[in-house]
């Protein structure tokens, strides 16, 4: 193995320009993919945070009485995946409102009767997506005593539509850049192979196996992919630190969540993906040349 790594490094040194171009291409491709992933990760967290982790408020109509509560709870629990149901009476809701609007308490004193409805706050057990909350909320809304269910379906739903559109665009861009990087990597290997044609011919004549001949190319591809991924992520991190240092705090106060860099899992996946890209480009090229 040490021999193959040594050989691959020597080849990278002897074809510096070609390898540099390949690494830059992989880096840029990884950078574009990582930017999308950074956006998706933060946007997903934002949606989850705005949706408060699968929380929904059930507003009950005027016919509701406390005797109906146990039966209603059974009905809601029967829908499955409900973690917690908290009853909030209209009196409790008004008290909370008064506390929150202490500066305008005079206005609330003028109310002749409590306009707020009785409500239930529910939280789902295994909340994964907005769609899951939406589905449960629609089932709850079908219950006769329920007036309305609030789960951020208005603006959050619209935001999700835009987000999904971005997601599709992002995936398409990722595939496009993956193919570009793959094409460049495969061509670099092809050029390296042809530039070493005599060497390979001699290696075959002296009894080198195909594995012995191909291994340095694969190591070269893996190194290019790994370094390309690493450089792409490093550029993203530098850009992220430069942009986010002044912006995060003020933005976080508006958005009710903090902007974070990619998770360790995503970083690992990106590095593994770019390393695979280097290997796959090499595999495709050698398969075509040596067929």
């Amino acid at each position, binding site marked *: 193995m040490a021999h193959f790594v040594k050989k691959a490094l020597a080849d990278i040194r002897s074809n510096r320009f070609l390898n540099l171009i390949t690494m830059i291409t992989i880096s840029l491709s990884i950078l574009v993919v990582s930017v999308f992933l950074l956006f998706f990760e933060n946007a997903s967290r934002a949606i989850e945070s705005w949706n408060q982790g699968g929380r929904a408020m059930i507003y009950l109509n005027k016919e509701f009485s406390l005797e109906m509560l146990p039966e209603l709870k059974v009905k809601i629990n029967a829908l499955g995946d409900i973690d917690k149901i908290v009853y909030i009476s209209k009196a409790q809701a008004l008290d909370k409102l008064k506390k929150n609007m202490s500066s305008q308490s005079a206005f609330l004193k003028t109310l002749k009767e409590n306009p707020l409805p009785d409500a239930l706050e529910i939280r789902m057990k295994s909340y994964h997506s907005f769609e899951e909350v939406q589905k449960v909320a629609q089932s709850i809304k079908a219950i006769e005593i329920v007036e309305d269910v609030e789960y951020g379906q208005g603006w959050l739903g619209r935001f999700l539509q835009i987000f999904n559109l971005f997601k599709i665009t992002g995936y398409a861009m990722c595939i496009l850049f993956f193919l570009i990087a793959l094409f460049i990597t495969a061509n670099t290997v092809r050029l390296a192979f042809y530039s070493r044609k005599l*060497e390979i011919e001699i290696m075959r*004549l002296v009894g080198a196996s195909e594995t012995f001949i191909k291994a340095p190319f694969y190591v070269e591809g893996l190194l290019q992919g790994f370094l390309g991924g690493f450089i792409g992520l490093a550029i993203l991190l530098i850009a992220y630190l430069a942009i986010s240092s002044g912006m995060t705090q003020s933005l976080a106060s508006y958005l009710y969540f903090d902007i974070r860099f990619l998770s360790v899992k995503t970083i690992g996946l990106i590095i593994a993906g770019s390393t695979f890209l280097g290997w796959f480009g090499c595999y495709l090229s050698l398969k075509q040349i040596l067929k």
Partner: protein
Amino acid sequence: MNDKRNKKLIIRLFNVSKRFGGKLALKDITLDVEQGELIFISGPSGAGKSTLLKILYLAQKASEGQILIDGMNLARISSSKLPFLRRRFGMIFQDFKLIPNRTVYENVALVLEAAGKKPSFIRKKVMQVLRSTGMEKKINALPPTLSGGEQQRIAVARAVVGDPSIIFADEPTGSLDSKSAQAILDFLMEYHKKGATVLIVSHNLHLLERTVRGRNIEISEGTIKRIAPVLQGKERK
């Protein structure tokens, strides 16, 4: 005759032909080579000498006929086993076929690296062979910086470093002056004396006079015209 029966036949060719498009480069070659024998393949340019050698060292495939090397039928050998068979050969070419961007040491060591030998063994063996060819002081030199004679000595070192049982030499002295040619020939004879089977392709008949006893296979227009023992200077007279 008895002596021949006792010796192992290491190379056997049965009605071997080679076709390039519609042209026959070799026609119906049948030949036996004994282990440890010295064979000259001579003939004019374009006679098919190099083609025959290329078929034997597996650089080309025969169009027709059967070839057995050490009992192995080349037509039936799988591509994954080819490298193992090639490791039993040593090859020398007129154009040296050295890797220009690798040092003398790396060029010679390649044979043993490809065979998966340990680095300590490789170092010891390569240095030993380079010493015997008088090239130990040039281990870090790149082939293009060396003279033709020196490059061919490196090629000989590479050919013998793996202790091959058969050495194929395709016009090994073709591009060398007489002094360098003699040195290369001496190395080859040294390894032949150690028991290696040596096949030399050459159109230079004077080369035959400088060697030990062997057989000369004269090829012309793709066929064997004559097989005769090589006689040394005194025997000729």
